[in-house]
């Protein structure tokens, strides 16, 4: 029947197969993490969220001992990324770089998720808003901008409907009593700055780090940024110089943190928290923040959750009162700040 050589061959193959299956079973009972982790970034590459996520990624990898794969998943003002991570098994293998939009997507009607659905590992950095415009534009200062907006409805590039930059420009328009602009969501702060560069829009609002290179290279003019002190290199005036009334709002903009879905086992969260703390406290990360004009926030664990809760109250009600958000925060039991 079967020749002995072929029989040997078959036996050998079966043995190998058994070994493979065994190793599969053996590894199943080992500790978390056993395989690579997916880090979802709910915005396009190049933006503040993306930069922070990708900077933290290798640092967290060191602590966790497994590869972390960063995946951009833009869309729906971060609701697509949020929903994806929330729908994935709550086992710690899918984590989310969470920007400010979690405070607004519920009232904007883009998602049913709020901060209560997440274990916030921490809030790493704050990103102040900057107003940028093409150098050819006739508007040369933030005061001129207000004047022009009295008569004209400008088109303004922002990241997404309801994002931090939307709030920034809407606040600016409301405080100065001028026309609310037509918002053009470009899918991220960096694409918004590019839209201004390409003259697709009259003005763009985005995070300082997202436009800093273009401002340095003189491709965009920064009219002002929403902070208290002028930035020196490159020179960006603080909005409070021309509009002292904004002192009570600055620094104004977005923040970026990291989160994992509620319901993830406590020991997994603890390990992630550990890795996150290590990453944000590292010199590499602090240098990165300083070089790119991010403001360090450095909150983690429960402090961070409280911060996000307050942020939600402030942002959701701001958007609703300004008429930008269609749904009342009351529907999500978000108290007034």
């Amino acid at each position: 029947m079967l020749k002995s050589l072929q029989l040997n061959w078959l036996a050998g193959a079966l043995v190998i197969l058994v070994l493979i299956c065994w190793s599969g079973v053996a590894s199943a009972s080992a500790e978390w993490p056993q395989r690579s982790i997916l880090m979802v970034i709910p915005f396009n590459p190049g933006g503040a969220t993306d930069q922070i996520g990708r900077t933290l990624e290798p640092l967290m990898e060191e602590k966790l001992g497994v590869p972390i794969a960063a995946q951009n998943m833009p869309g729906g003002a971060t609701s697509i990324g949020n929903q994806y991570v929330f729908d994935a098994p709550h086992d710690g293998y899918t984590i989310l770089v969470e920007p400010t939009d979690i405070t607004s997507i519920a009232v904007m009607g883009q998602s049913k998720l709020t901060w209560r659905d997440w274990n916030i590992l921490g809030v790493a950095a704050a990103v102040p808003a900057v107003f940028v415009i093409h150098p050819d534009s006739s508007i040369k200062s933030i005061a001129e901008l207000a004047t022009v907006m009295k008569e004209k409805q400008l088109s303004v590039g922002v990241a997404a409907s309801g994002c931090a930059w939307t709030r920034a420009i809407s606040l600016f328009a409301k405080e100065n009593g001028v026309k609310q602009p037509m918002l053009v969501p470009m899918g991220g702060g960096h694409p918004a700055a590019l839209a201004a560069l390409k003259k697709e829009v009259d003005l763009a609002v985005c995070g300082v780090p997202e436009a800093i290179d273009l401002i340095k290279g003189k491709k965009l003019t920064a009219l002002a940024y929403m902070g208290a002190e002028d930035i020196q290199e490159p020179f960006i005036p603080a909005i409070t110089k021309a509009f002292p009334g904004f002192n009570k709002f600055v620094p104004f903009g977005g923040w970026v943190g990291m989160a994992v879905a509620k319901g993830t086992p406590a020991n997994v969260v603890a390990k992630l928290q550990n890795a996150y703390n290590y990453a944000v406290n590292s010199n590499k990360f602090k240098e990165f923040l300083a070089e790119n004009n991010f403001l360090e926030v450095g909150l983690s664990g429960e402090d961070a959750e409280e911060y996000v809760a307050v942020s939600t109250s402030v942002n959701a009600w701001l958007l609703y009162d300004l008429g930008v958000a269609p749904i009342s925060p009351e529907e999500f039991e978000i108290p007034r700040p």
Partner: protein
Amino acid sequence: MLLLEIIVGIIFLIFFLYLLILGIEMPEYGQFWVSPGAFPVILNILLLLLSLWWVIAQIINLREKKELKNQVVKLSALFSAKEEWKRLVFISVLTLAYIYWLTPLLGFSIATVVFLTISLKLFGKINWLKCTGVGVLITILIYLAFRYVLNLPMPT
């Protein structure tokens, strides 16, 4: 296969009309044409027109060639079990079984061996031993390459 195309074309017309209605009903954010429904509506209108063109063109073709009887014969021949379609049915059923029955039952690796062995025997014109051997070998190669070189987990 003209008759088949006409039938499918008409099905498309109904389908795209349905999608068009769904699109029109999508919510407005400021103005309809900047809202989620805008692009689907445009696409469905285009698709309706194109499907109409398709159906009409094929009907004209049919009338010119006066082939209606011929086409009906061809159509029924299409659905009778010819050797070729048998093979298609086999491989389709085998693939579906592989994904939805064998893999959950036996784990991906073993399921792959089984799938490969059976399909190689059916379509590969080699004897049982070679089929199993190749099946096992390829599965091992794939497993090693994906797990260790590319760091990809196997499907569950």
